[in-house]
C-alpha cells in the first residue's frame, strides 16, 4: 500500500489536525486526527455535515494551507508549497470574469510558460471535449451556470492533473444539469484516471460517483467511517443507478453513519448551549 501511495496522485493523510487561530487568540479546530488514504486513480468522496471541515481537507491536499499537526502526503511526498499536478474545482466558479472562456481554460498552461498559440490550441480542443466549441470568445458572465462549470472542468483537466480536488463542484447547479455534469465527469475521469477527492454534502452524488465514501463527523471533523462502493463500473447514468438494490443498501448503510453527525451539527446551530453540552 505504501508503494501505491508513492505513484503519482495518491493521497495520504496521517493524524492531520488543522486549527485556525484568530488574532484575538480564539482557536477553531477544523479537522482533528484525520487519517485517510486514497490510492492513485481512485475516486474518493468525502461527505459530512455543514461546517465539518470537508473543504479544509482539500486545501491541505492542494497545498494552499499547512496542517497544524500530522502530515499530508501526495504522491508519496509531504506537501510543501502548492501541490504539483493537482487541479481544483471550486463550488463557486473561479473563472476570471475579465478573461474570455478560451483564455480562462488556457490559464494554467500560460502560467507554466507555454507559448500562447500552443496553449490556446490545447484549450480549444479541451473546450470541444466539454462541448463548448463556438464559445471561445465569450466572457464567463455570458454563459449559463452549467456551461461555466464545464469551462472550469476543462481548465482543471487541461493541466492533466494526477490529482483532482473538487469542492462541492455541482452544488450550485440545478438538478438536471447536475446529473449531466456528473455523467460527464465520470466519462472524463475514466479517460484520464486522476485521483479524485470529491467533497459533497449530497450522499446520492457521492455513492453514484465514487469508489469509496468517507464520512466526516460534525466539527471538528474526523473520519467516522469509510465505505467501499462496490457498484460495477462503468456506472452508466447517475440518474438511474440510484434505483439499484445495491445502491440503496449502501445508501442506507452510509446514511446511518451520517445521520447522527448531521443532527449533531444541526442541533449545534439551532441551540448552541445544548450542542456544547452534548
Amino acid at each position, binding site marked *: 500500500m505504501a508503494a501505491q501511495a508513492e505513484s503519482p496522485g495518491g493521497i495520504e493523510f496521517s493524524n492531520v489536525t488543522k486549527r485556525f487561530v484568530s488574532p484575538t487568540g480564539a482557536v477553531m479546530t477544523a479537522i482533528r486526527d484525520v487519517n485517510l488514504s486514497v490510492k492513485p486513480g481512485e475516486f474518493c468522496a468525502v461527505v459530512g455535515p455543514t461546517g465539518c471541515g470537508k473543504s479544509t481537507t482539500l486545501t491541505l491536499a492542494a497545498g494552499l494551507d499547512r496542517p497544524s499537526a500530522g502530515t499530508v502526503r501526495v504522491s508519496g511526498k509531504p506537501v510543501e508549497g*502548492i501541490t504539483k499536478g*493537482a487541479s*481544483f474545482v*471550486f463550488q463557486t466558479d473561479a473563472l*476570471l*470574469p475579465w478573461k474570455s472562456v478560451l483564455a480562462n481554460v488556457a490559464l494554467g498552461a500560460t*502560467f507554466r510558460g507555454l507559448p500562447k498559440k500552443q496553449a490556446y490550441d490545447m484549450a480549444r480542443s479541451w473546450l470541444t471535449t466539454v462541448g463548448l466549441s463556438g464559445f471561445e470568445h465569450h466572457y464567463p458572465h*455570458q454563459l449559463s451556470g452549467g456551461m461555466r462549470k464545464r469551462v472550469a472542468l476543462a481548465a482543471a483537466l487541461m493541466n492533466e492533473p494526477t490529482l483532482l480536488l473538487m469542492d462541492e463542484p455541482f452544488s450550485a447547479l440545478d438538478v438536471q444539469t447536475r446529473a449531466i455534469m456528473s455523467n460527464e465527469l465520470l466519462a472524463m475521469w475514466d479517460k484520464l484516471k486522476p485521483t479524485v477527492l470529491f467533497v459533497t454534502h449530497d450522499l446520492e452524488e457521492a455513492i453514484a460517483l465514487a469508489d469509496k465514501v468517507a464520512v466526516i463527523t460534525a466539527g471538528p471533523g474526523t473520519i467516522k467511517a469509510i465505505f467501499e462502493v462496490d457498484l460495477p463500473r462503468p456506472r452508466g447514468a447517475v440518474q438511474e443507478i440510484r434505483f439499484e438494490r445495491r445502491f440503496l443498501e449502501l445508501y442506507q448503510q452510509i446514511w446511518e453513519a451520517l445521520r447522527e453527525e448531521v443532527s449533531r451539527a444541526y442541533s449545534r446551530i439551532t441551540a448552541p448551549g445544548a450542542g456544547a453540552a452534548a
Partner: protein
Amino acid sequence: MNAEASAPAGKAGAAAAGSDAAPLAALARAQARRRKAQVRAAQAATVVFILGTWEILSRVGVIDPFFFGSPLGIVSRLADWAVHGTAYGSLWLQIWVTIEEAVLGFLVGVVLGVACGVTLGEVPFLADVFAPFIKAVNALPRIVLGSIFIMWLGLGLASKVMLAAVLVFFVVFFNAFQGVRSVDRNFVANARILGATRLQVVRHVVIPSAMTWIIASLHVALGLAIIGAIVGEFLGSQYGLGLVIATAQNTFDANGVFAAMLIIGVLAVSAEAAMEVLEKRLLAWRPPSASDTNVKGI
C-alpha cells in the same frame, strides 16, 4: 450581443416571437428616438432661456455687466482672445499648457497611485506600517502644497504637474488599495494551484480585479488633475488658463473670467468623454449592470 450570447434559448425565443418582433422593435426604436429628441430640445430651450435672460437683464441694467458680465460680452472676449491672443501669447498656447500640465499630472499620479496601492494591498506588513502616515498626509489640505512646489520647482511646468499628481495620487491610491484587498480569494487560490507565481497572480488576477475600483477613481482623479493645474497656475506661472483667470480677476474683467471658465468646462467635459471610452474598453468584460439595461429614466 449579450442577449444572443447568454443563452442559445434566447435565439429560439426571438424566432418564435417571429412575426410580431419586427414591427414591435421598430416601434420601440421610434419611441426612443422621439424621447431623445424631446430631451435635447428641452435642454436647448433651457440654455437659451438662461442666457437670454442674463443678456437682457444686463442690457436693461438690472444686473451690472461690470461685475456679472454678459453672454455676448463673453463671446466677444473669447473671439478677441482667439484672434489677438491673451496678454501671455496666443489663446491656444494657454490651453495647451494647461492640458499638458493636467495630463502629465494625471498620468504621474495614476501610475504612482496604482503602483503604491497594489504594493501595499499585496503586502499587509507595509500597509500596517504606512497606514498612519498616509492618513496624516491625506488629512492635509493638499492644495497648499502648491505653494511649496512653486518654491521648489519654479514657475514652470514641473510645479503644476507635481500638484496635479499629488491630488490624483491619493484618490487613485485608496481605490487601488481597496480594490486589491477585495479580490476574490478563490481567484487567487485557483491561480496559485494552476501554477501562477506571485507576480503572475498580481498581473492576471489582482490588477484586473482591482481595475473596477481604479477606473471608478479615475473620473474623480481627472477632475482633480485639471483643478491641480489651474490652481498651480493661479499660485504662480507664466502661461496657462489659471493665469488668464487670475489676470482677468485682477483687472475686474468679469467676461474674461467667465470666458476662461467656459474653456475649462469644455476641456473637462471632453476629458470625461475620453475617460468613458477608456472605461468601456478596459471593462468590456463586465456584465451589463442594472442601470445600463434600464430603458427609461436616468
